[in-house]
């Protein structure tokens, strides 16, 4: 109990001090994407958001605690994805933010996680000068779709490999962060098409720069945070993980 309070106090303290130097990270800013890609990414993202709404409606009937869980994780994804963390990497001092979609994908399911990310990104685009309205579809694709599904499948694969709950969460968080930035690199790499550049080369270059600067360190931090959150939920209320199908049977001890 005391430990949980301390962890929350640290998170809020970091949030408070970081708000003075509000900065940005993976979000693609207004005006970067040309109209054809704006429409394409919106067309790709919207079906996932629609399915997410359907899943929320269905699951809230099956599990009473599901809506509060959506609220908690929605707020967490919102705060995580506009929470600049100072990182000292190869290029010196930089800041970047985690995504939180790995955690929400594991606990809510990938489709609901896309919905939660879409809402967070919309609020950030409207009020925090963070991302953009025309680039919302692109940001939902990278952070919502790629981040959520990669994190979810990484968790499932880690479970199949019989890794402990912490390491399953760690991989989910880390992989979702990596794939989010891979998505951003792909979206930027696509800009060279028709301008004589190589898409693969541009994508690889941007992704490499992301990893070498701040994101390489930050994806490990995100993995650790997700791992600890899953262990916390398991210790505090294992029934939630059982209901969500993340733990097969609560009579079997889960290796943490």
């Amino acid at each position, binding site marked *: 109990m005391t430990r949980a309070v301390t962890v929350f106090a640290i998170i809020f303290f970091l949030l408070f001090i970081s708000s003075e130097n509000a*900065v940005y990270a993976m979000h693609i*800013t207004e005006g*970067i994407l040309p109209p054809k890609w704006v429409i394409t990414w919106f067309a790709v993202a919207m079906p996932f958001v629609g399915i997410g709404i359907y899943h929320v409606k269905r699951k809230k009937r099956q599990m009473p605690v599901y809506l509060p869980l959506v609220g908690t994780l929605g707020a967490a994804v919102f705060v995580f994805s506009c929470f600049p963390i100072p990182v000292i990497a190869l290029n010196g001092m*930089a800041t*970047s933010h985690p995504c939180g979609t790995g955690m929400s994908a594991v606990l809510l399911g990938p489709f609901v996680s896309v919905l939660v990310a879409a809402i967070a990104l919309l609020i950030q685009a409207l009020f925090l000068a963070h991302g953009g309205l025309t680039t919302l579809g692109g940001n939902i694709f990278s952070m919502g779709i790629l981040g959520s599904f990669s994190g979810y499948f990484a968790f499932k694969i880690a479970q199949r490999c019989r890794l402990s709950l912490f390491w399953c969460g760690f991989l989910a968080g880390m992989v979702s962060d990596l794939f989010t930035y891979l998505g951003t690199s792909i979206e*930027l790499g696509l*800009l060279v098409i028709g301008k004589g550049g190589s898409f693969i080369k*541009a994508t690889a270059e941007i992704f490499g720069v992301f990893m070498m600067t701040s994101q390489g360190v930050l994806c490990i931090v995100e993995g650790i945070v997700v791992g600890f959150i899953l262990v916390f939920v398991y210790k505090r209320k294992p029934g939630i993980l059982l209901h969500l199908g993340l733990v097969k049977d609560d009579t079997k001890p889960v290796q943490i």
Partner: protein
Amino acid sequence: MRNHEATKDTKRNKHKTVIFVAFIILVLFPPVLFAEENIEKKGIPVVAQTNNEEGAWTGIDVSIVGKYAEKYGRPPRDPYINTDQGDLLLFVFTVAGVVGGFIMGFNVRKIFYEKE
């Protein structure tokens, strides 16, 4: 009798939610929507005080995404609702942090600490 009380409670909770949302809108919207307009009307010189300038602790959105977008001929432009002016961004980030923290704390308590 119990049903009647439960309906009353639900109504009271709904009223509280409406008041809370109205409060947030009142606090958040006017500065966001009218800040730029008022500065222009009063002729106050706008100090270039954005966080987009590159330096120590620059966000990688500026140092990587912005740089590559510019290289590929699609430089970023100002958002439609530009809150990145002076302390306005600090204000909206603080409000967002407080509201986000409140929602998280409220639901964490409900899920993990309240008895069923």
